[in-house]
């Protein structure tokens, strides 16, 4: 299983509120 990180943070935060779901926000420097 691979985590599907999203990069549209603004939309993620909006959807989190709508879905009442918490968010993992990763500040990363790892190779993409």
């Amino acid at each position, binding site marked *: 299983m691979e985590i599907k990180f*999203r990069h549209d943070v603004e939309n993620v935060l909006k959807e989190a509120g709508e*879905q009442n779901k*918490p*968010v993992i*926000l990763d*500040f990363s420097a790892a190779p993409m």
Partner: protein
Amino acid sequence: MWPDERVARFVSEDFIPARVHVKDDAAAFKKYGEQYNAHWTPTILELDPNGEEFYRIEGFLPNDDFLAQLMLGRAHMDFKKGKWADAEKGFREIVETLPKSEAAPEAMYWAGVSRYKATNDATALKETAKSFAQRYNDSSWAKKASIWA
């Protein structure tokens, strides 16, 4: 950290995962770094559905410790919401499944507090203090629980 199967399952099932990259998403990294006071990598934030931070992990961790920290954050979120049974379950799961992680003593402490909050029975705290006599007795959390003995 992230490729670990247990981590991936935990994150994918319980959270919406998002990432800002210091180079590839420089503008977003700056924007959200300032918003959330995150200026180093890796910094992992657990945000509630309103976008408010409820737990922070800074720096690399081995898989077991990383997973335990993620679980600890989730349990703390339940605790802050007053969901005592869910919080206790989450804290105890860390002690049971990742007993050697650095988060385990803290989880055992908060499991006892969660039980107390649910029952208002001080026996929960006494039992927690007794548990610390048997394990993690050199941790700072054992010192904090010692007042309950």
